[in-house]
């Protein structure tokens, strides 16, 4: 319970305005636990995907459907969005005012939406090829795993919009900072999941 005053990476919220002592620490800790639970969800989706790889039931399989080029572009977009979120966190940490933070958040939001656009067009191509989710166990597993990540990114985008509104309403107060820290964790977490999807789904599917 004791220890140094710097309670978590980057930002020290422990003695800022209206927070209870330890509230920032507890809040972030709770969010880490949530991410852990979410990570288990993804781990299980990956496991199911693994067991269903061969269950193509005559429908198009991984080699036919996955295009490494599109997935690579999506990867670059998402990794760049993590960079811009990191820059937003730094802008917040060093109190560089609202403009930098908001710009970086908007950039991240744009990249997130771009990622979703590319992903949706991938899905549309698959569907037009006849690779729909009701064709086989394999396609079911694919359309559970990858869109679940996509839904998380969508939630992240909505969250960024909410945070932009909160910054407009309250400025950058302790609670906004705390929420942005959690959102940052969430965003980087989705990046890590995507790297696993890129490796397990797309690389394995096209190269393996």
């Amino acid at each position, binding site marked *: *319970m004791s220890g140094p005053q710097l309670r978590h990476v980057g930002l020290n919220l422990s003695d800022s305005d*209206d927070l*209870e002592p*330890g509230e920032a*620490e*507890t*809040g972030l*800790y*709770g969010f880490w*636990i*949530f991410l*852990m*639970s*979410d990570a*288990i*969800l993804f781990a*299980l*989706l990956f496991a*199911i995907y693994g*067991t*269903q790889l061969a*269950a*193509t*039931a005559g*429908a198009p399989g991984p080699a036919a459907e996955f295009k490494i080029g599109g997935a690579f572009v999506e990867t670059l977009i998402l990794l760049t969005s993590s960079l811009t979120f990191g820059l937003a966190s730094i802008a917040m940490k060093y109190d560089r005012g609202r403009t930098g933070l908001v710009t970086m958040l908007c950039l991240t939001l744009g990249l997130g939406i771009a990622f979703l656009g590319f992903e949706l067009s991938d899905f549309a191509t698959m569907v037009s090829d006849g690779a729909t*989710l*009701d*064709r*086989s*166990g*394999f*396609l*079911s*597993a694919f*359309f*559970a795993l990858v869109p679940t990540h996509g839904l998380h990114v969508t939630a992240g985008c909505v969250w960024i919009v*909410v945070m932009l*509104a*909160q910054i407009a*309403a*309250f400025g950058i107060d302790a*609670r906004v900072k705390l*929420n942005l820290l959690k959102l940052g964790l969430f965003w980087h977490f989705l990046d890590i999941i995507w790297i696993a999807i890129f490796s397990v789904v797309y690389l394995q599917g096209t190269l393996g």
Partner: protein
Amino acid sequence: MSAEIWYALLGRIDAKAFPFVRAWDNPTVSELIGAFAGALVVIGALALAALLTWKRWWRPLFRDWLTSLDHKKIGIMYIVLAGVMLSRALVEAVLMRAQQSLAVNAPGIVAPEHFAQLFSTHGTIMIFFMAMPFLTGLINYVVPLQIGARDVAFPLLNSISLMLTAGGAGLVMISLAVGEFSTGGWSGYPPFTETAFQPGVGPDYWIWAITLSSLGTTLSGLNFAATIYKKRCPGMHLMRMPLFSWTALCTAILMIFAMPPLTLATALLALDRYLGFHFFTNDLGGNVMNYVNLFWLFGHPEVYILILPAFGVYSEVISAFSSKELYGYTSLVVATMVIGVLSFTVWLHHFFTMGQSADVNAAFGIATMTIAVPTGVKIYDWIWTMFRGEVRFTAPMLFSLAFILTFVLGGLSGILLAIPPIDYMVHNTVFLVAHFHNMLIPGLLYGMIAGYMFWFPKAFGFRLSERWGKIAFVCWVAGFYLAFMPLYVLGLAGMTRRSQALFEPDFRPWLLAAIVGALLLLGGLVSLFVQLWVSVRDRAENRVPIGDPWDARSLEWSVPAPPPEYNFALIPQVDRLDAFYWLKEREQAYAPAGPYRDIRVPRNSWVGPLVGLTGTACAFGLVWHIWWLAILGFAGLWAVVIARSFVRDTHRIIPAAEVAAADRRWRDAAWATGAVPRQLEVTTANRGLAKIFPSEVPA
């Protein structure tokens, strides 16, 4: 055209959805029983609403309870929910026992479909809407008090968890009056629960009720873990926590890790049913084993989510009613955590017969038996705690003793089942039913009842009737043995579980013994309600305002009964295990204290009830394919959550003067009250101030 409008507005609901219409069309005993149950739900809801209106209790209900973020009130509401659901599921159990005892070469009273719904709702309710709310309620109430905290880490999340769980329970209750429930058992195995075999709403009710509850439970686990890791009072090191808090921590960790597989299993089953995915179907590459593995990846840790808090209760109860410190505290902690880890290594023993190789089965069989080791350690620790103690046979203590004996018996049949060849012989028989009831009734329910009786005086300020507690004890224990020992015999004789009709006349005597047992168990439940009623009636004589009726050792007993909203006027400082007992021995427990400070407590919030309401509306819409309702519920839920994130004024201040006045009043009362010796603790002389039993000779 009108059919299309009907479908757009009300989805799949038609006249046949209502059991009253079905019973009118086809007045068999089975349909009439269904209609009667549906009528009970409707009349019960109307009667409750009328009572609230007549007594003008609506406003207090919302102001003091439903919108409260106080962990103590949320805990009590969880336990009320558990009590309501226990009543329904126990009546269903009696009905099933009645059916089987009547249906030997005869049709009995309940039709096969109806019987299948009964065992599905019985299991679903007992696990998700009786056991889970009960233990979550106890943890909610007790843990913050035990670790010297003013509330849980996330009070609003706590309210949301409660309301999601209550929404799930509500959905199961609604299914009695509108539609039907799944016939696929509490585990809902596909492909039987797929649309190909059950196109109706039954499995959908099951899926969404479970999903609401599992989301609530995941959030509860997160909340408890953060509370225990981050909100302990100064000096409360992990190894100074009371054992109940330890078991709560372990249960919270298990919830965090074990609930996602369940959420995923039900979500994927829903995708199969709603969108035509092929996860668990028979054709096009679906794989049922994925469901079975997911379900038991949750299901086995779930067993320990259920049992560990009860172990914690027994540790507290046995120590308090033996006037001794817990024997082998460290070994109990280690055993708890070992059980927590091992619980993730044995899930396969739930499906030994499903075709994996003998080597795999052997590995999981051995892992299963290993769990007996830490459990055995605990049993011995409890026995040694009683050894040479000042043991008093109060009702909670009697439940604890019955647990020790009965649980060991159930454990022995568990060792039998852990041996794959034997499991092949008795798989899917009532031997298994006997075994898991033999674990969960003593290993969960007795513990919850013991905890309820033990902490009731703390929560409400007066003791429960000992006499009715003992009557309940006799019913619950005798009822258990009569109801379930015959099932061991029947299972070995080959009686399959979940049988609506039987064809072996030799089974009848055993089935008759079992129905007598089931009726005794029902008597046990009634005794609990009588006990509550009698105790509320006689509360004036049985008050224990000072707050320590049992001469117990941990911090929750160091505050008034009932505790103030903020729990502790001054956050305690702890420098050892059982710090409160140490203070009592030195007569410093009620010494003047100070200085007092302003205390910040969370304001009430409508977010929890609204999230529960919108979540349940969404689920109901999904069940009946009322898409506008589902979309509205989902959008409403997130709108509430997002709107809440814009609320800044979330706390209010209780002034130091008010805190000081209340605390000084209580401390003065403690000095003015006569301390009660242990021999008189169940008499009206007990005002909640304990005369210390001579502690052991210092080493």
